[in-house]
């Protein structure tokens, strides 16, 4: 039902049941928020979104108050702006003054708020809380002194991820956000997804940085520095360099990485194709033997850790395939090293990922061979952008180049790994071919594309009706697994991604982007697929060569050694 309200003395239409904030946003009226997360229930804790109810002069939180017919509000009256300013000043009174040294300098919501509210002097000062930085996690650093207690990380961790690694501790001005019993994040149930970083308004949550190790390797004459980049990376950079969101920058990226000094530039999409070869073989084998079904994808390291902690009963279902990052790492230090006559000790292997959990994955014990890790350092997309700037590369004025062979070719099937549904689609394309000898019609499975939390499809492959489910957000994954535990048996293949939307919305991606940006990145990937000449992993010429000359066959002895892994139940504080 439509009603009329008055905002800043102007009548506007609203729908009953909408919150004031929703109506304001729809009408292009900007009210600042801190604790609010679009699409989640309002919290009303930070009071930034206050508006003045004209009649009573009361200040109300627009995020939680619903509109009603005849409501009159002022969004920027002196009373409102003063109240907001005081809130920011109070937050600043307990905040370190080291913006210049902060990772979030120039990209911090607290900075923006104090700038917009014209905070120009310290009117409120007091004793600041002294809290310890938690550097225990391989992926995430928490600096509680920079935290302004908006609680967005806590909510994402609980409501989207179903992990609840962190929560508010203590009360009143002694409050902080932490792990139970003040333990480190490394022994908590944290799955390193980085979604808490994505929602953090300040520098309280950041990824662990490895710039200095990488720079050292780049300057070390005895090292061959090899870099790989994930399928989602090339479509997630453009906006940072002033180009339209979703522009594919793969050519510029290859060139930039060479300029920086990487000796070999490889595309993880190649390894995504390799993953598909192994995973589809595994799927077919399990279907034929009717064993350990449904098979669940293992590309997402947050999901894998979640499974080890929360649903170990499904570990036999998780595909034994390493993730593309790790397959690539392993192939670089075996096949590539042998072929190019480089000792594997002399290779320093870097990967560029839209993900913070990849940092965790790279240092897992299972991902090392004789004490040498397959991947030595991981940078997130955010860090990559900084790295490119550090080396002064102009991404807008650079001649595009192609990646190096033999690990530089990827098909568009592998490229789809970057978005939710992509792994499943690529796997089915290849499984379909292997089972029937013909290609899947149009190569497309539209039912599993898009941004819904859960997508399902039934695909006829000969006599088999293959059930596929795609979920993103670990909370949603848990719901599906509960159904399966309760006896649901029509699903053969499940793709699980921790981040809502998949890797294009990963925890390592540039900040301040919304659903619209994610959609554009996904569209870009599907566009690449539409225009591609080779749309199936089994036709990747370099992958075929790798099997012919080295691995022999999917699930073979060598593949098993290099490309597969195992999982174990983890006891964590949860």
């Amino acid at each position, binding site marked *: 039902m439509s009603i009329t309200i008055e905002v800043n003395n102007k009548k506007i239409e609203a729908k009953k049941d909408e919150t004031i904030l929703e109506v304001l946003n729809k009408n292009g009226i900007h009210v600042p928020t801190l604790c609010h997360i679009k699409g989640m229930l309002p919290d009303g804790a930070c009071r930034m979104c206050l508006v003045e109810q004209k009649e009573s002069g009361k200040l109300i939180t627009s995020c939680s108050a619903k509109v009603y017919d005849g409501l009159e509000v002022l969004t920027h009256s002196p009373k409102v702006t003063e109240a907001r300013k005081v809130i920011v000043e109070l937050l600043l009174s307990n905040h370190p003054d080291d913006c210049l040294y902060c990772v979030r300098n120039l990209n911090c919501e607290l900075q923006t708020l104090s700038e917009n509210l014209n905070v120009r002097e310290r009117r409120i000062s007091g004793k600041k809380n002294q809290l310890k930085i938690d550097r225990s996690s391989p992926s995430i650093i928490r600096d509680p002194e920079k935290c302004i207690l908006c609680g967005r990380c806590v909510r994402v961790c609980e409501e989207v991820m179903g992990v609840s690694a962190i929560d508010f501790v203590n009360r009143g001005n002694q409050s902080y956000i932490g792990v139970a*019993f003040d333990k480190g994040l490394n022994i908590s149930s944290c799955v390193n997804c980085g979604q808490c970083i994505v929602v953090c308004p300040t520098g309280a949550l950041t990824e662990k940085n490895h710039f200095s190790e990488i720079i050292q390797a780049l300057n070390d004459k005895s090292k061959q520095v090899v870099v790989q980049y994930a399928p989602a990376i090339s479509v997630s950079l453009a906006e940072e360099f002033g180009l339209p969101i979703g522009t594919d920058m793969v050519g510029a990226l290859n060139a930039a990485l060479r300029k920086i000094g990487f000796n070999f530039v490889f595309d993880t999409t190649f390894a995504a194709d390799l993953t598909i070869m192994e995973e589809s073989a595994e799927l077919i084998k399990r279907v034929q033997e009717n064993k350990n079904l449904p098979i669940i994808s293992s590309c997402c390291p947050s999901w894998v850790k979640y499974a080890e902690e929360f649903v170990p009963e499904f570990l036999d279902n998780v595909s034994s395939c390493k993730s593309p990052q790790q397959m690539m790492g392993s192939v670089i230090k075996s096949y590539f090293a042998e072929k190019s006559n480089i000792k594997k000790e002399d290779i320093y292997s870097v990967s560029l990922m839209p993900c913070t959990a990849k940092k965790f994955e790279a240092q897992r014990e299972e991902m090392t061979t004789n004490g040498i890790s397959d991947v030595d350092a991981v940078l997130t997309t955010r860090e990559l952008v900084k790295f490119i700037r550090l080396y002064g590369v102009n991404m807008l004025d650079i001649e595009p180049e192609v990646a190096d062979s033999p690990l530089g070719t990827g098909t568009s099937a592998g490229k789809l790994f970057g978005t939710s549904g992509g792994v499943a689609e690529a796997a089915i394309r290849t499984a379909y071919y292997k089972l029937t000898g013909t290609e899947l019609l149009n190569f497309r499975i539209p039912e599993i594309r898009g941004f819904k939390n859960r997508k399902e499809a039934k695909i006829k492959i000969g006599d088999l009706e293959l059930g596929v489910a795609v979920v993103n957000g670990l909370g949603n994954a848990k719901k599906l697994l509960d159904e399966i535990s309760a006896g649901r048996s029509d699903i053969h293949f499940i793709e699980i991604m921790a981040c809502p939307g998949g890797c294009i919305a990963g925890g390592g991606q540039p900040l301040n982007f919304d659903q619209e940006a994610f959609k554009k990145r996904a569209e870009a990937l599907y566009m690449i697929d539409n225009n591609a000449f080779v749309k199936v992993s089994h036709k990747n010429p370099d992958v075929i060569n790798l099997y012919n000359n080295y691995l022999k066959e999917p699930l073979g002895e060598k593949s098993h050694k290099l490309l597969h892994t195992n999982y174990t139940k983890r006891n964590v*504080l949860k």
Partner: protein
Amino acid sequence: MKKNVESIFEQYPKSGRPDLIPLLQDVQESYGWLSEENVVKVSQFLDIPVSNIFGVATFYNQFRFQPVGEYHIQVCRGTACHVLGSSTVLKEIEKQIKVKAGNTTKDGVFSIEIVACIGACGLAPVISVNGEFHAKVTVESIKSIIDSYKTIEKK
């Protein structure tokens, strides 16, 4: 009589979130404090993440995360005591035994707890050591009170 956690759980047959605080109180009453081990058990029993439970438990002053010392000092921070200087009293005690409120000394002899009101406002500022009240304490008298317990301990 100390009940183990499992037998405490038996008293909560249809358990759920609302049982959290009473359950924690029972565990604390029986053990004197909330150990990590027991909180994890409560978390599994009620199916509530440990981080949530720690959050709730640290919100209230009544819960402890260290065993109480041999001598458990309760410092009243109620209104009457506050007016008569209980905050300086507390600071002095913390200084004397070298731990903050809520904690226990390394040797396990003393622990401090802040309580809201002991109900002995006439004696303000008042502290209680293992239930024994000390009335109208001052910064000066604290040292001798604490020393007296130290001497018993030595004997």
